[in-house]
């Protein structure tokens, strides 16, 4: 099961909606071994595509080193599907290289519905798992909060406080 704070889920959904119709992607880091996602890191989709996403290799190196320095690991790796359901595609499965991570998929095909699912992908085998959304437990200053389901004129989606 993936347990994740509401504010992080909101931030991920906001990121996916902002980049729609392109796919959005990112990571939520957490202390190594804790299985607790605490630090949301939106990543660039280097492919800038509606059907494909790819971390920029240099950004990834920087972020992975930073996690290493902070004794963190990628607890959640997320991306959005913009026209189809939140289920791993064959491409997702062939690329999945972090056996310890929760692969979170967000579908933005319906602008009114929040569609989030989480999967483990190990050796090409996909297992869906429940998502438990927590409403507290993360420092409110660590991740900004978002107004989901509205159309705010100015909201900082970049977690610039990080």
């Amino acid at each position, binding site marked *: 099961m993936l347990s994740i704070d509401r504010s992080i889920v909101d931030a991920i959904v906001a990121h996916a909606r902002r980049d729609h119709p392109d*796919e959005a*992607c990112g990571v939520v880091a957490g202390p190594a071994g804790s299985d607790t996602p605490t630090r949301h890191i939106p*990543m660039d989709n280097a*492919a800038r*595509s*509606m*059907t*494909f*996403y*790819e*971390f920029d*290799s*240099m950004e*990834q*190196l920087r972020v*992975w*080193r930073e996690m290493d320095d902070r004794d963190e*690991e990628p607890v959640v*790796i997320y*991306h959005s*599907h*913009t*026209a*189809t359901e939140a289920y*791993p*595609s*064959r*491409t*997702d499965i*062939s*690329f*999945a*290289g*972090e*056996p*310890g991570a929760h692969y979170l998929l967000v579908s933005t095909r319906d602008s009114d519905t929040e569609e989030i699912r989480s999967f483990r992908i190990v050796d090409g085998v996909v297992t869906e798992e429940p998502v438990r959304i927590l409403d507290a437990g993360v420092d409110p200053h660590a991740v900004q909060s978002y107004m989901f389901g509205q159309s705010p004129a100015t909201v900082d989606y970049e977690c610039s406080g990080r």
Partner: protein
Amino acid sequence: MAIEVRIPTILRSYTGGAKVVEGTGDTLGDLLADLDSRHAGLKARLVTEAGALHRFVNVYVNDEDVRFLGALDAKLNDGDSVTILPAVAGGAFGFAAAAAIAQHGAATAARSAVAAR
């Protein structure tokens, strides 16, 4: 002195769980051959049967992506640090994505060829 190689979680089954191993070689290809002599099977996870760097991994020498340094022909020096990370990619449509991968592969190969000149 040797070359330090950082191994991602998914490949640590080949290194007995070690996060960092050491090896030697004048090029990345030589280094991987050297590592494979002690960590059998590691190279096959990084290099395709056709002898190219696998699309599912990113390999860096110090702070550079080796795709821009000539890939397996990238030159190494004692004291260099090599980092291996699983590439993070995917997407909704298998076929469109496969085409994107093929294109990307061709483009990187072309860039590598230019860089190697």
